[in-house]
């Protein structure tokens, strides 16, 4: 901890020194506004996002800024409260007069500020998960994180490749679980998959053998568990306890080492889709994302400790905005918006972004890697 602080103090000191001698102050700064859930229930999203933004704004300025202008970050802590987020968005637009907004940790706060952003006509890149943010497409609104729908699609793709067509679905009762369940049900027919069981559990439940016993009695060929927290680990252990010999699929909600630790040996053979950032060092050198991922991971971990995909979403949002401003040759809002929409081949931590007038996310299924857990570690499938 002390060492970390020292490194962070040194880094800030260095940046400050570079800033002191750079001639950036001359021109009007480019203002990037953000509101993030740095405290409160969604702080696990907002905290790494803010750290990422601050760190990279400093790095960009140390490298000479954008178009010879300094980049300034204006930040407010929304605590994931939609009402506060709306107030802060108004303040960013009217008082701080920012050029672009990159923020919104949670889906609720993002959806709440969309009317303000659309009214004011300011480019807004959200860092939240819900597919509703970009579907239907809104003129000024973009986002960088992959969606639950893509996770479900990735899983079904893998199931199809293994010849699985009958799936038993089991999910928790939280927001993430419900959305995942919804997307899984909707998407199944597209992949020729039939859902033969649709069980749920409470996220604080301690035993799911009842639901799994029902699943055992069906002709399911695989079990798909959409969940977050302790639920998926208990499901995985219960599957083994009941001696059910079916492939188990988990969602990206458990893409952390914690899941492997909790489920123990039962986790062996479990497959899940995960953002490439988690397995950056396992990717083949030919992977276009590998360099970007390792650079982000090393930069972040040198100062703040283990990376999370959430900070990565902020990295992607910041640089999509900065590159668009550079291409637009200034901060004219309409031009910047068009350039963000024209983003193509941008290699970020979440995948390779190719946006367009009808796609304000721009990721395809390659953004997810299919992993299999073997002996307490992830291995890449394929």
């Amino acid at each position, binding site marked *: 901890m002390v060492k970390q602080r020292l490194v962070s103090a040194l880094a800030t000191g260095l940046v400050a020194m570079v800033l002191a001698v750079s001639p950036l102050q001359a021109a009007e700064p480019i203002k990037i506004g953000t509101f993030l859930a740095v405290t409160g229930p969604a702080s696990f999203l907002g905290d790494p996002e803010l750290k990422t933004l601050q760190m990279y704004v400093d790095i960009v300025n140390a490298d000479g800024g954008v178009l010879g202008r300094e980049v300034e970050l204006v930040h407010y802590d929304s605590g994931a409260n939609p009402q506060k987020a709306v107030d802060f968005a108004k303040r960013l637009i009217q008082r701080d007069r920012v050029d672009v907004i990159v923020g919104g940790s949670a889906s609720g706060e993002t959806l709440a500020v969309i009317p303000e952003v659309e009214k004011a006509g300011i480019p807004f890149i959200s860092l939240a998960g819900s597919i509703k943010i970009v579907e239907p497409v809104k003129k000024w609104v973009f986002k960088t994180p992959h969606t639950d729908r893509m996770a479900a699609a990735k899983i079904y793709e893998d199931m199809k490749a293994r010849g699985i067509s009958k799936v038993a679905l089991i999910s928790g009762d939280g927001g993430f679980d419900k959305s995942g369940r919804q997307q899984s049900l909707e998407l199944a027919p597209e992949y020729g998959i039939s859902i033969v069981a649709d069980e749920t559990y409470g996220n604080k439940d301690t035993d799911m053998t*009842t639901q799994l016993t029902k699943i055992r009695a069906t002709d399911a060929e695989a079990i798909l568990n959409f969940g977050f927290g302790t639920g998926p680990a208990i499901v995985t252990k219960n599957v083994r306890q009941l001696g059910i010999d079916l492939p188990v699929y988990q969602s990206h909600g458990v893409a952390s080492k914690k899941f492997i630790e909790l489920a123990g040996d039962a986790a062996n053979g479990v497959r899940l889709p995960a953002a490439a950032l988690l397995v950056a060092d396992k990717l083949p050198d030919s992977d276009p994302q590998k360099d970007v991922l390792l650079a982000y991971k090393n930069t972040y971990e040198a100062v703040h400790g283990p990376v999370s995909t959430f900070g990565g979403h902020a990295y992607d949002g910041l640089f999509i905005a900065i590159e668009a401003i550079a291409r637009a040759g200034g901060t004219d809002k309409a031009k910047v918006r068009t350039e963000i929409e024209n983003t193509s081949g941008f290699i970020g931590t979440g995948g390779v972004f190719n946006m367009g007038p009808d796609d304000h996310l721009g990721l395809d299924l390659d953004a997810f890697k299919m992993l299999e857990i073997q002996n307490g570690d992830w291995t890449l499938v394929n």
Partner: protein
Amino acid sequence: MFDQILQFLITGVTVGSTYALVGLGFAIIYNASGVVNFAQGEFVMIGAMSAVSLLAVGMPYPVALFGAVMITTGIGMALQKFAIEPARGATVISTIIITIGAAIFLRGAALLIWGKDIHALPSFSGEEPISIGSATMLPQNLWVMGITALMVLVVRFFFDRTLMGKAILACASNVTAAQLMGINVRMMLLFSYGLAAFLGAVAGVLLAPIAFTSYDAGIMVGLKGFSAAILGGMGNPMGAVAGGLLLGVLESLGAGLISSGYKNAIAFTIILLVLIFRPSGLFGRKASDRV
């Protein structure tokens, strides 16, 4: 179908015995003071979390478990000493509100000390499932049931056969009269909070290998234990145990035979029906005020 129902019943009994153990803790403090202690779930969480920490600093597993239970017992007594006792003379309702505050405080302290991470304890004796016909259970489930049964017997013996147990019951029925009979009421209350925390911590370390623990794990466990206690009849330790087992089996059968989405709704509807027809619970003494 029969195979399935057998598994539902076994699941129900294993889950129910954890509810029973938590419900037992509620019953003890209620017996001593007529107060429902809403920090009971937090005792469960603190027991498990302390065991995780003691294990992490390198203590042997049995020592860590014992240490965790003792730490929690100490916290239970401290709660009585520093939060409940200064408010003596307060009404039962005020005291219940104090316990709600204490629960929030303990949860917050746990968040600061242990963070938001989920933790697990190793199983006491392996993870190889035990088969009963086509149904299965874990060795840890047997530990839960066995120790619950043992605790129930000890508590029953304590209240029925020992002078101290009877003294605690006397405090609940009439504090002034108990004091006049030479019972040290303060001591009895201190002891019953310690005992309740002890039982909570035992439930915590038994449950953590199956269901894990985190700073907020006490809320749901506490709620289910409370439901078990009122279903069986508040203040009757045997009732709390019966209520816990019944609640577990109802949930499991409801989820298995009807719908897992309505699992809690089914169980709580039945509890409501029971309370409408028997307001003092299945095995509760009828409350009667002498005039």
